């Protein structure tokens, strides 16, 4: 089966969607009986009048020698094909939720309303013709239902490099990966280490979003004489290094404020069979972290966290058990490329 993945492209810019599309194509090509290629069409969302042309251009292209297409983004997913599967990463939000909340640039131009309507009708036609529609998150799913009246199944994007997170020993350290900033509350964790009595270390590694916050953490470590127990490794690290840290941890910690997704950090830990300590206000992370089952859910304060760190620090069997459950839960959610690809090739 020849499968063409359809994505937009902003020349010379690469982001998460590009990484995802490449990973999807690689996964498809690794599937027996499947040949896959990526089609990228340059997209310019401004000026607003250009949107009309972009819709027309996508509708005017023809695909020959292709058995199935997987569309990821507007407007490239509008290219006609009889066997079209959509995996919506997001819609053209300027014409939907942002328009409704008056945050869209379409609200500031004369023909904005008509352009938004045109996007809706082009989308509608495309959705009607699609064999199946998947969305990347409950948020996208809800928007599609609300604004277009189309149901969809959530198909979470798996880790791009899940094969790195294979697990390993349960060594005497907690690992907190991901971006470092006030929204991720690493300061609570350092504070908890001040209160905790167990001998397990804490390693924080990731790029610093907020310089001042980074310095604050450094001061917190120095002032409380924690340098022997808390290690701060700020900056971008090679993926293998991050994977090694996850694979060897006793458990991982991730405390974002009301995150709207499950978080790659959580998925990496679960893939490596590590439980995750999170907070009761961490949002989407709680979809995976169930207290006492796949990790621990703390209150967002240092005392509650310290108690959990102490408990887990002295209980290797529990750390192992949480890890096993975590991995099983991740697998049951179908968060693997094998499952994702099988789903996209089904129907």
């Amino acid at each position, binding site marked *: 089966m020849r499968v063409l993945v359809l994505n937009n492209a902003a*020349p010379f810019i690469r982001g998460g969607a590009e990484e995802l599309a490449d990973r999807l194509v690689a996964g498809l090509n690794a599937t027996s009986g499947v040949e896959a290629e990526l089609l*990228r069409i*340059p997209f310019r969302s401004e000026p607003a009048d250009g949107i009309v042309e972009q819709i027309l251009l996508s509708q005017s292209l023809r695909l020959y*020698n*292709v058995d199935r297409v997987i569309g990821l983004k507007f407007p490239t997913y509008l290219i006609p094909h009889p066997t079209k599967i959509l995996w919506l990463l997001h819609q053209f939000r300027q014409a939907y939720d942002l328009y409704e909340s008056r945050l869209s640039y379409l609200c500031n131009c004369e023909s904005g309303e008509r352009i938004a309507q045109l996007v809706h009708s082009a989308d509608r036609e495309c959705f009607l013709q699609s064999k199946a529609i998947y969305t990347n998150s409950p948020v996208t799913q809800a928007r599609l239902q609300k604004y277009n009246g189309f149901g969809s199944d959530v198909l979470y994007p798996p880790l791009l490099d899940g094969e790195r997170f294979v697990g390993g020993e349960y060594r005497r350290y907690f690992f907190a990966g991901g971006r470092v900033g006030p929204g991720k509350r690493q300061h609570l964790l350092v504070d908890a280490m001040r209160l905790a009595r167990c001998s397990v270390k804490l390693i924080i590694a990731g790029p610093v979003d907020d310089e001042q916050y980074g310095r604050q953490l450094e001061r917190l470590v120095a002032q409380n004489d924690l340098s022997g127990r808390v290690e701060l490794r700020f900056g971008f690290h090679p993926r293998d290094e991050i994977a090694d840290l996850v694979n060897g941890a006793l458990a991982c910690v991730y405390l974002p404020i009301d995150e709207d997704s499950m978080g790659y950090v959580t998925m990496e830990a679960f893939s490596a069979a590590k439980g995750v300590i999170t907070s009761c206000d961490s949002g989407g992370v709680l979809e995976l972290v169930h207290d006492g089952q796949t990790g621990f859910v703390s209150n967002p304060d240092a005392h509650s966290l310290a108690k959990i760190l102490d408990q887990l620090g002295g209980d290797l069997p529990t750390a192992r058990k949480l890890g096993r459950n975590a991995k099983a839960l991740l697998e049951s959610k179908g968060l693997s490329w094998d499952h994702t690809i099988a789903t996209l090739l089904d129907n």
Partner: protein
Amino acid sequence: MKIVIASSFVPFVNGGGRFIVEWLEHKLREYGHRVERFYLPFVDRPEDLFDQILAFRLIDVSSACDRLIAIRPPAHVLEHPAKVLWFIHHIRSLYDLWDSSYRFVPDDASGRAFRAAMMDLDTRTIREARHVFTNSQVVANRLMRFNNISAKPLYPPILDPGRFRNDGYGDEIVVICRIELHKRQLLLVEAMRHVKTAVKLRLCGTSMSPAYVELIKAMIAKHGLAGKIIYEDRWISEEEKVERLAPALAIAYLPEDEDSYGYCSLEAAHARKPVLTASDAGGVLELVTNEVNGLVAPADPRALADAMDRLFLDRGHTARMGDANNRRLSELGIDWETVIESLTS
């Protein structure tokens, strides 16, 4: 410089049309440029030809890069203030192949209007370019004849030619290119019925037309040629290509009035092998001169068989022609430095 390369493609079809794009991309990066490459889907069918061309025209990269290099049609219709074309062919069924079975609209008033519209559109959009280069003199001549546009041939080199080597001159005449009707592999199979020596033929490559593949296989079976012809009906990797060419006696490449010499002729030149071609092969004749760096025979099985026997019998002459084919590369200036300098000036 930030450069966008735009070209058309048919998904899942590989061949020379991709090599020229991807090798250029690679080389431009090597010369320090930032490059984004876009393959845009295109099929030359009359019912939606102009719709597709419209789509190409609407693609806007004008503010995204310092220069646009457009290669396979209809990528030349994209707009950019610094558009440079490396034009590799027209939509030939509406141009030089009009009076052939390849024509896909009737030769009546509406068909002729269709053709005129295409030519007018091409002429206007090609004229927008800052420079127009072609991959051969043949294509440059067509641009002059049909569009009244003068263009300069810029011969496409192959990537990393140093990998090709010569292990002497064995018994096999090798054909490595897509197996298609207009590449006329069948003619070579027929020629093998008439050879008088122990010369062998090796066909390698994939095909878009299963019927043609079956025809070739049937011909081999019908005439009991299995012992003389090796048919590798699959995609040949670059590494395998080197191994097939190194011990070859010569290569054969006899497309029907092709636009350019074909990468396989260059590969042969780098491996110091002569090229067997046909007198109506088009652009191949820009590279190959009869008895100098290859043999040019009429497109006829007996004449081709005779040429094959001569390559087999007179190995000294074959080797001398192989060496001459290698020298021909520098005579024509087929190298990347020339290409990069031309396309970025």
